[in-house]
């Protein structure tokens, strides 16, 4: 920090103001200098991380497929009042659009989008594409109705009209098992599409079970590490940190090798005559929770340990000398002081558990897949990016709310590693 040179000639009053401005300017320069150190990373994170996530969230409500591929139909539907089957002008526009989509090979794309809301629409669109390919002129309304009576459905055209809007609540509603009916009112979704609330509940409950399991297993271990003399504690700490630094994939592989039906654990169970036949330990909820607990255990132990380490042992001794029994002293004097660590460890494990993908995918069964799996599935396999983004967006919101709680309660600057 450079000390600003004072102007020699100024009077007392002028001196004071100029000193003040100079101080303020120096502080501003200093702030700017500090900020310029932070700026590169902040910009990097905003550009490469926050911006793509923001754009992904937009995809959850973006709905341009139909408007872009069938502009004439959507324009014609603007004038439609929605009471009965649209007139010839809508069908004529639809036929013209179909000629174009057949040329661009996008008929299936629009059909797929409408198919989300009207089951069977995709194949009907493909059939309609062949109809216009066959050539001949109008009147199109009769031709379409003759080929498939469903083209006369008022409900279908209402959904078509709505699908032409550039923003849609469709994906977000579907993510919570709701849908808009033809009139636009929100109702419960069809039973065969109502799978997502279950998946969210499953994700939350697996995370909760894993968090509780790590707490039950981790709390005593953290206590042991905190009360042992440092020489012994350091050795045992290695047993906590070795899994912590080992690749998740390696640990998951280890569990597969251990748990599979001709694996090591089954061999032991058979050798000990605990079972007479091989037990299914993997590709189910048990294997998923076990492997996730194993991976998350150090995350729960370390914050609890660092809080326990700061509790003077004299507190327990004082409680005992004042007449408290061992259990009373532990529960009423020691445990309350460890709660900040318990909160930090459990919240961290819960937040991280919500986003699990690899481990359930490898050691879980179809009924154990969490939200992340479906985000990946809708991105890669189903190519339904709106749905992937909506599910991801909801998962992100849950995570960020918990992160804010964590920040408020624990403080992210208090997080330590190793």
């Amino acid at each position: 920090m450079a000390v600003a040179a004072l102007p020699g000639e100024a009077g007392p009053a002028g001196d004071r103001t100029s000193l003040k401005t100079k101080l303020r300017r120096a502080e501003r320069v200093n702030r700017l200098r500090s900020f310029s150190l932070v700026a590169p990373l902040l910009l990097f994170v905003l550009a490469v991380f926050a911006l793509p996530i923001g754009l992904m969230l937009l995809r959850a409500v973006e709905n341009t497929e139909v408007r872009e591929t069938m502009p004439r139909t959507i324009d014609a539907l603007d004038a439609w009042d929605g009471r009965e089957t649209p007139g010839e002008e809508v069908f004529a526009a639809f036929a013209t659009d179909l000629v174009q989509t057949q040329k661009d090979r996008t008929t299936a794309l629009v059909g797929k989008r409408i198919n989300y809301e009207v089951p069977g629409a995709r194949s009907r669109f493909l059939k309609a594409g062949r109809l216009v390919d066959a050539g001949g002129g109008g009147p199109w309304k009769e031709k379409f109705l003759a080929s498939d009576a469903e083209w006369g459905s008022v409900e279908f055209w209402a959904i078509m009209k709505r699908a032409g809007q550039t923003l849609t609540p469709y994906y977000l509603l579907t993510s919570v098992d709701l849908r808009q009916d033809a009139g636009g009112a929100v109702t419960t979704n069809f039973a065969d599409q109502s799978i997502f609330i279950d998946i969210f509940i499953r994700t939350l409950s697996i995370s909760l079970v894993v968090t509780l399991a790590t707490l039950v297993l981790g709390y005593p271990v953290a206590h042991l590490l905190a009360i042992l003399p440092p020489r012994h504690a350091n050795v045992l700490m290695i047993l906590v940190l070795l899994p912590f630094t080992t690749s998740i994939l390696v640990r998951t592989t280890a569990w597969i090798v251990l748990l599979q039906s001709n694996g090591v654990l089954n061999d032991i169970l058979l050798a000990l005559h605990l079972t007479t036949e091989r037990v299914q330990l993997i590709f189910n909820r048990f294997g998923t929770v076990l492997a996730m607990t194993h991976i998350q255990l150090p995350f729960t132990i370390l914050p609890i340990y660092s809080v326990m380490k700061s509790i003077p042992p004299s507190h327990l001794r004082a409680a005992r000398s004042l007449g408290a029994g061992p259990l009373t002293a532990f529960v009423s004097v020691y445990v309350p002081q460890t709660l900040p660590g318990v909160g930090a460890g459990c919240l961290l494990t819960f937040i991280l558990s919500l986003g699990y993908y690899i481990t359930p995918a490898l050691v879980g069964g179809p009924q154990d897949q969490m939200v992340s799996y479906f985000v990946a599935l809708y991105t890669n396999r189903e190519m339904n990016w709106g749905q992937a983004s909506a599910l991801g967006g909801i998962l992100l919101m849950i995570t960020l709310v918990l992160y804010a709680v964590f920040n408020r309660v624990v403080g992210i600057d208090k997080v330590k590693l190793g």
Partner: protein
Amino acid sequence: MLAPSYATPREKLAYFLFAVFCTLVFLFLVGPILVIMPLSFSSEPWFTYPLPGLSLRWYIDFFTDERWRIALQNSGIVAVFSTLIATGLGTLAALGLSRGNVPFAGLILSILISPMIVPVVIVAVAMFFGFAAVGLNNTYLGLILAHAILGTPFVVITVTATLTGFDRSLTRAAASLGASPWTTFRTITLPLIAPGVTSGALFAFVTSWDEVVVALFLASPDQRTLPRQMFSGIREQISPTITAAATLLVIFAALLMLTLELLRRRSERLRGTGG
């Protein structure tokens, strides 16, 4: 040893049970990792004990198979470059934030740490869409940038931790003795925060080295990394070559942990906060 000298017999029993419980948890923690390692030396491709015989064939397979060799090489390239970016930017940001006069420091810090918290699938899918628009999918650069993002929170956290005990009068003394800011940084600040920077870099390196989800979305087969190669192997059929790769990774992790522990001790010594 655990029970205090004034413990009653019942209390001693409780402490004994407590010790047994903790032993079982430690077994749970390291058992799976210890079980998988010997299997990689088995002479037969099935996972049973006792081992039918010892052999190094799976290690030979690992080092000679073209796919594993390329995966190893890709992992190295991506991890080294993403670590350099993460460490450089992360250290600068931690230095700036620790000066205590950055506006909205709390908000900025939570943004900088968030890549550690946001579910990795969301990061992967968002980058998959975003990078496609600028042609970064299926490139080394895309994967390096993505891994750098995932690594920076660790650097920010570890460097900030070393800076909390940092004595500001040292840099002021250097400045008052005529050192330029750069000289002050190079000769005073950097040596003192070096343990934090190095352990942050190690965390960033291992984050990239172990990362599989982003690699699944952003990398083409040309950039397949070691974890991705392992992932596809596990999906199909666990071959013992995977256990060989896993064993090498465990040894790698153990070395890393040892380094971190040495760095922690060095940092404590430098800051005079204990042995």
